[in-house]
């Protein structure tokens, strides 16, 4: 009974998303596209933190490397199709994730947070200084006039908000689905076991090092794709994609939604984008407000929206049980 309610709501949600551009206005279509891109980023982070328990504080590096790799492909190899640039972004993220994972292989917890933050700072510094390749402080632009050719449907410009919406939605769906699929594979369960009790996983004969490397690489791949989507969306790349505050924003998204569940970070991404939009119309200092909100959340209620919903549904079902006169044990 339960599964089909879930499936039904899910399908409804999908249908709503698919029809939205024809129902809503351009502004919200644009905003939703941004939500999709951040969802992909957030879910890539979930694979590391929520699912495997790896406290990486330098996720911006994977996102930024993907963004820049895509940007460079679009500019330097402009005869290659846009989708390929995305794929290049993904694989760059994968390689970057692999190497970061390799360096921090033996680190745990605090040391891991430390190490990943340090490495991402280093990559940020490289992006900043390597002007010839990345344009340094100025960043990169120049592909807003690009077009994408779809079989049977014709050519669409990246400027076209509606087209971009569907383009991003498609990739976002694919990425989220891929992550979801992986969490349900033996590998995905192994990752959960590492989060739950890395020591015991080791004693079961599981090659924990290899699993960690694999998830870093995979997470990097997805983050890289989100980076590529982002630059297509914003039509620019800048070193800020790689800095501490970006890693911090990824954390904020994850925590607001609930970092321990699959759906949480996606919910968090949506909330983050909308908060960002509405807060910035009130004050220039919206990042400060978000940051303060984040700290308060951590101090007082760190389970996020999903956690809240879970607690509520548990209370509701307990309440319902009582109403029908059932007790939890004997009956």
């Amino acid at each position, binding site marked *: 009974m339960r599964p089909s309610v879930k499936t039904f709501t899910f399908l409804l949600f999908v249908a709503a998303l698919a029809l939205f551009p024809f129902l809503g206005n351009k502004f919200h279509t644009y905003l939703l596209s941004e939500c999709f891109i951040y969802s992909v980023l957030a879910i890539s982070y979930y694979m590391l933190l929520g699912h495997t328990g790896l406290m990486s504080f330098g996720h911006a590096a994977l996102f930024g490397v993907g963004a820049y790799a895509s940007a460079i492909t679009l500019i330097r190899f402009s005869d290659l199709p846009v989708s390929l640039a995305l794929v290049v972004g993904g694989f760059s993220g994968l390689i970057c994730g692999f190497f970061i994972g390799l360096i921090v292989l033996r680190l745990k917890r605090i040391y891991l947070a430390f190490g990943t933050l340090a490495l991402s700072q280093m990559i940020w510094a490289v992006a900043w200084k390597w002007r010839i390749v990345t344009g340094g402080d100025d960043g990169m632009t120049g592909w807003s006039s690009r077009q994408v050719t779809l079989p049977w449907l014709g050519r669409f410009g990246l400027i076209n908000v509606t087209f971009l919406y569907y383009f991003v939605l498609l990739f976002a769906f694919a990425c989220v689905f891929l992550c979801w699929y992986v969490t349900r594979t*033996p590998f*995905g*369960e192994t990752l*959960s*076991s590492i989060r*739950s*009790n890395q020591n015991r996983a080791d*004693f*079961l*004969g599981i090659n924990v090092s290899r699993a960690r490397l694999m998830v870093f690489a995979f997470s990097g791949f997805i983050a890289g794709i989100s980076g590529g989507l982002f630059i297509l969306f914003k039509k620019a790349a800048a070193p800020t994609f790689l800095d501490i505050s970006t890693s911090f924003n990824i954390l904020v998204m994850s925590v607001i939604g609930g970092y321990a569940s699959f759906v949480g970070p996606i919910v968090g991404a949506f909330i983050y984008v909308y908060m960002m939009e509405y807060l910035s119309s009130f004050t220039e200092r919206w990042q400060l407000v978000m940051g303060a909100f984040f700290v308060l959340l951590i101090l007082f209620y760190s389970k996020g929206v999903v956690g809240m919903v879970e607690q509520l549904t548990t209370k509701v079902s307990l309440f319902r049980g009582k109403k029908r006169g059932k007790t939890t044990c004997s009956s």
Partner: protein
Amino acid sequence: MLVLKGVSKHFGPLAVIQRVNLEVTKGERHALIGPNGAGKSTLFNLITGHYRPSAGEIYFKDRRISGLAPHEITRLGISRSFQIINIFRDMSVYQNMRITVTARHRMSLNFRCQVASLGQVREESEFVLSRVGLLPFMNEPAGRLGYSQQRALEVGLAVALDPELLLLDEPGAGLSPDETRSIVGLIKEVTTGKTLVIVEHDMDVVFDLADRISVLNYGTIVASGSPDEIRRNETVKEVYLGNVLETER
């Protein structure tokens, strides 16, 4: 099957294990006893690769395993349970078992298929769970089980790896006499045909289960032999201040 030659382990200036020689033959049920702090768990940690020996060698089926990583040693056919319960608390009982069985099938890093579709893994998991009496609880989070059930799961996970050598570290720790009896029965059942090394404090369990006993004190083996020999051994009696052994039979 398992041979320890001159194994020592120092932690800085502290010598926890000193020149231990031990031989366990195939199919044997070997108990390791000794006062608290004698180094029994450390010895297990040495065998399973959690620690490296400071000196000496450990051989399993004539192959040197001292210095290998824990997961490599596990793959060679050695499995252990833990004195302090070391299960995957926030995962369900069934998942605990499934992870273990998947590991046994060397499929832990497979990302092509869905784990729910692995029929054989499912069957095996349910089978082992039923053997340890935990099948009715399969969907409970493992951390919510009662203590004796968690102990049963500990043993179950170790057994599910289908090892040739099974190391059980105080499987009865903290159990009431009834619960202990039942877990001993469980151990006997699931370890038929396997080589077993068990660390225990409970002498009832030891004399019930063991073919041979080794006594560890201050990091060295002070006596080793059949249960009868050990019962009569003067040094052993001294080690235990004579009390425990005299209360038996």
